[in-house]
């Protein structure tokens, strides 16, 4: 067991190394010469060379990569070209809205999608099942910003139930915070719900055919017990795996959702950075998101043994 955990943790190192290499290359091949920018218009080529040397930009790729990784490990993500603020600080300022949005979406999606999938599997072939599957296809097809605009139009503009756009920090109270995030969370969660509901249904269908389900029925267990206790427990591993993989959808979707709902989070930061070609910021955000994604999936892998004691390593 311990050996497995160590092996699994070590296995993420090459993955993270690749991500770091990719993200570093991003800045390395990015158009524009930072030394020339810093030197200004009046500089002679010799000045530019001197600045380049002082920044260490003339050294070989691998040495610069090593130094860059070393700085990252110390929490230094570089300095934004546009605002001159450390990228780490900028990320810190923007992380709360994004984290809030993702947590609400995650809770919402899981608590809606799993019952949907379970019921669809239980009522296989009925109208309920077809409705759920129809919703799943629709959820995969309607892009997140389309859902966002439709929801905002109906519930914010027409019905005036929630604010149209913006974000209120949780410090100013749970309710205003929640009101601002509920529509973005539904919009962002749609495709995620579709994904989880679909895999839940498929796995449950398989599990419900097993002998132990028949045994549970024979000994007189109630339908709800069978579905949620016996069957869902055994279907947990694939479902949790998909929830983990689906985090990628949430991260990509957050970039768009934050634009639609004017939420000042990491997604907005990414979009602004792209428009300004602020490469250190792009680098920082991509690195952070990928790191979180890898970490979440690592934790899920380690969770398998708890979810399903039959799994031994």
């Amino acid at each position, binding site marked *: 067991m311990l050996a497995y955990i160590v092996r699994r943790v070590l296995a993420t190192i090459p993955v993270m190394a690749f991500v770091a290499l990719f993200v570093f290359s991003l800045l390395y091949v990015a158009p524009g010469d930072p030394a020339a920018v810093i030197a200004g218009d009046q500089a002679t080529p010799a000045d530019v060379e001197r600045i380049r040397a002082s920044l260490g930009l003339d050294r070989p790729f691998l040495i610069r990569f090593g130094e860059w990784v070393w700085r990252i490990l110390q929490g230094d993500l570089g300095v934004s070209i546009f605002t001159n603020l450390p990228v780490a600080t900028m990320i810190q300022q923007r992380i709360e809205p994004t984290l809030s949005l993702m947590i609400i979406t995650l809770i919402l999606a899981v608590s809606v999608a799993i019952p949907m999938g379970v019921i669809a599997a239980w009522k296989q072939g009925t109208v309920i099942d077809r409705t759920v599957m129809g919703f799943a*296809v629709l959820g995969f097809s309607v892009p997140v910003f389309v859902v966002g605009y439709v929801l905002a139009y109906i519930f914010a503009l027409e019905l005036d139930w929630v604010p149209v756009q913006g974000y209120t920090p949780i410090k100013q109270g749970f309710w205003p915070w929640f009101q601002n995030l509920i529509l973005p969370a539904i919009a962002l969660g749609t495709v995620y719900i579709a994904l989880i509901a679909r895999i839940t249904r498929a796995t449950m269908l398989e599990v419900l055919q097993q002998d132990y389900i028949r045994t549970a029925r024979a000994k007189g267990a109630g339908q709800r017990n069978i579905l949620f206790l016996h069957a869902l427990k055994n279907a947990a591993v694939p479902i949790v795996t998909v929830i983990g993989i689906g985090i990628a959808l949430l991260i990509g979707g957050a970039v768009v959702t934050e634009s639609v709902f004017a939420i000042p989070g990491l997604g907005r930061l990414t979009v602004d950075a792209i428009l300004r070609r602020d490469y250190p910021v792009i680098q920082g955000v*991509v690195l952070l998101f990928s790191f979180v994604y890898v970490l979440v999936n690592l934790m899920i892998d380690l969770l398998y043994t708890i979810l399903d004691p039959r799994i031994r390593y």
Partner: protein
Amino acid sequence: MSASILDPKGITAANVAVAPTLPDIMPPVRARGGFFGFMRRNPAIAIGGSLVTLMVLVAIFAPLLFTTDPTALAPARRTREPSAMYWFGTDMLGRDIYSRVLYGARVSLLVGFSVAVLASIIGLTIGMISGFIRWADSIIMRVMDGMMSIPPILLAIALMALTRGSVQNVIIAITIAEIPRVSRLVRGVVLSLREQPYVDAAVAAGTRTPVIIWRHILPNTLAPITVQATYICASAMIVESILSFIGAGTPPIIPSWGNIMAEGRALWQVKPYIVFFPAIFLSITVLAVNLLGDGLRDALDPRMAKRL
């Protein structure tokens, strides 16, 4: 589902012992009835396919469908509501949204189809190499793991940040983001096909590896690849619109659905139709492609259909 009887897991010691009757093992072959019979049996393909065809026709014949120049500015007639004159209204520069949306279909479909074809071909090649050459496999799969750990939209955004916005660059960026998934799929298929008795038989008969790949492996990867390609097409169209929407995709001078929505963003609370018309077209097109994919999956690969 009668197909469940074919599931190998359904055959337990109990029902093997009593020798199931023939209809239990093999459901009768349904009446074929040519093209229309096929369409009737696969409504998802029929509906999805005709919607996609319709959209392709719209994209090709956009100039003939009562459109005007989609880039023609008319500041005097800006932000007009939809009317008999301007079917979908005009945007804040007075451009006709109906024309822009119809021409926008070209970008979406071009990106969707190109990415689907490119990602399939490259993914097929990489997956084949990975499935057949042991030493290359571990290296390729580590690289693919690394690429897959960057969320695809973020990867496409990062790549677009390096280049100028153009349709060609959008296609390249999305293709790169999609390749790892196709490669993994093909590798998985190849690895399971290699264990098939007919491949063993071919090896035993002295068939050379390239011939085995060409004659026995490749044809069997085409069904799952085709299904995957339709899903990639759908997802590429969404990613293109997202890239354009946040300003990192198709350049603003080319009308694309994402661009039209991006331009309507500032005004959407007062003039929601600017955003909604391209949104409807995009959603319907992606839905059609996804339906086509589901239909193809059910028709081409019954085993995969059962799992999802």
